[in-house]
């Protein structure tokens, strides 16, 4: 046993999980090699010191709970506001719209009075009444077997792609211009990409198949689990329309995802829609 190999066994030796033969070989090595023995002793001391940290008191800020609650309240408020404009926002929008209409109509009449032309103001009115979209709208597409998410340009907006529910952000997309981003999954199992707005508002979820097909013919859990089962069984991507965490029961029998899947989400019959050979949607 050489020194680098011996170091690989330091942890297992300390845990007592090294098998008998290796343990004896390592102990023989310690007897022969004083430097390695000293290294192991330093290794043990380092871990002992590290473990001492658990006795070190850490004072928790007295306002921690208030800080968490305040951040959460803000998040919940902003999520609700961006999801559905309230009555006040609606009235405000209407009032601004009215002012804009009056201004535009006034301008049109002024132009008419000067030019004497017979042009219509309808297009101005149409633009004045247009409601701005408040959240980015992800569109999931497939091209040559590759799954991508597309966004129209929304200057000043960003979206985050997360590796799984509550997982790390793997990509932040700037929507100053229209964006198309290819999604990928290098693991053997299906995995989900969660797409959310920069403020954390949930937008949608896409499950991408892993490299290995697996049979998961029946099951119960969540909509996300059902999407993963379809993805694993047929080797296709599944776009989840709706809440991935809602309860779901499913059974799969056959080779065509559209006709083979029988599923219930929250007491409603779910349907699988084919978007392309490699991309399906469940709702």
């Amino acid at each position: 046993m050489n020194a680098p190999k011996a170091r690989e066994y330091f942890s297992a030796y300390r845990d007592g999980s090294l098998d008998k033969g290796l343990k004896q070989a390592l102990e023989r090595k310690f007897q022969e090699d004083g430097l390695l023995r000293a290294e192991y002793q330093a290794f043990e001391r380092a871990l002992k010191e590290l473990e001492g940290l658990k006795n070190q008191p850490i004072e928790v800020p007295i306002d921690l709970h208030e800080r968490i609650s305040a951040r959460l309240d803000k998040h919940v408020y902003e999520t609700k506001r961006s999801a559905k404009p309230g009555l006040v926002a609606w009235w405000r929008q209407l009032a601004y719209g009215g002012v804009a209409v009056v201004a535009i109509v006034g301008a049109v009449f002024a132009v008419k009075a000067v030019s004497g032309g017979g042009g219509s103001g309808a297009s101005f009115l149409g633009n004045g009444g247009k409601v701005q979209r408040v959240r980015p709208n992800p569109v999931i597409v497939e091209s040559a077997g590759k799954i991508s998410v597309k966004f129209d340009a929304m200057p000043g907006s960003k979206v985050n792609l997360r590796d799984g529910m509550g997982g790390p952000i793997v990509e932040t997309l700037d929507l100053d211009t229209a964006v198309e981003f290819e999604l990928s999954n290098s693991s053997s199992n299906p995995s989900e990409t969660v797409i959310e707005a920069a403020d954390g508002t949930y937008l949608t979820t896409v499950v991408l198949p892993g490299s290995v097909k697996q049979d998961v013919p029946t099951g119960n859990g969540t909509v996300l689990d059902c999407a993963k089962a379809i993805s694993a069984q047929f080797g296709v991507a599944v776009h989840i329309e709706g809440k991935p965490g809602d309860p779901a029961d499913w059974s799969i029998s056959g080779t065509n995802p559209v006709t083979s899947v029988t599923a219930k989400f929250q007491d409603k019959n779910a349907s699988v829609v084919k978007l392309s050979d490699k991309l399906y949607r469940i709702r």
Partner: protein
Amino acid sequence: MSHSLSDDGVLIRRCQQGDRTAFDDLIRRHERRAYQYAFRLTSNPEEASDIVADAFIRIYNALQSFRSQSAFTTWMYRILTNCYLDLKKKERNRPTVSLESTMQTASGEVERQFEDPGEGPDVEVERFAREEKVQDALGQLPEYQRAMLVMYHVEMLSYEQIAEALDLPLGTVKSRLNRARLSLRELLVRDEELFVIE
């Protein structure tokens, strides 16, 4: 502080039915442990508080999909670790360090990072110095290694729980932890006064 799984399970089910008071109880139950873990990773009270707040927002958003097959605390460690890694990723883009970090305690606002050990007994001073060295060494390790070492040796999570929290195979957790421990030893033996090689 220990909590039974069933207590968490009841609270989580109530949260999933839209009971916000239950979520508040869940925060109260776990915020202390969450903060201590975050603080051990960052050594910075402001960052630790931000990580904990971010983590509870993510938990709130994802709670509908939580299925109680693993312990809530394991899931919480996973989300806290991800929040910490995200924060460090953002920091790499704007590398600034605050020297003004303060925290509110029952006795008012105090500086946390650069605390003076004061005129205590020699033993206390030496213990404090050793803890500082260990904390400094931890701070020099890659973030992932730091998180694993703190989870195992300070938070006392098992290899299995770490594997679940970090979504890694058990063997990978063991080999990465061994590398992390060797790296920690490397950093600590440089301080010969505190870690004399026998």
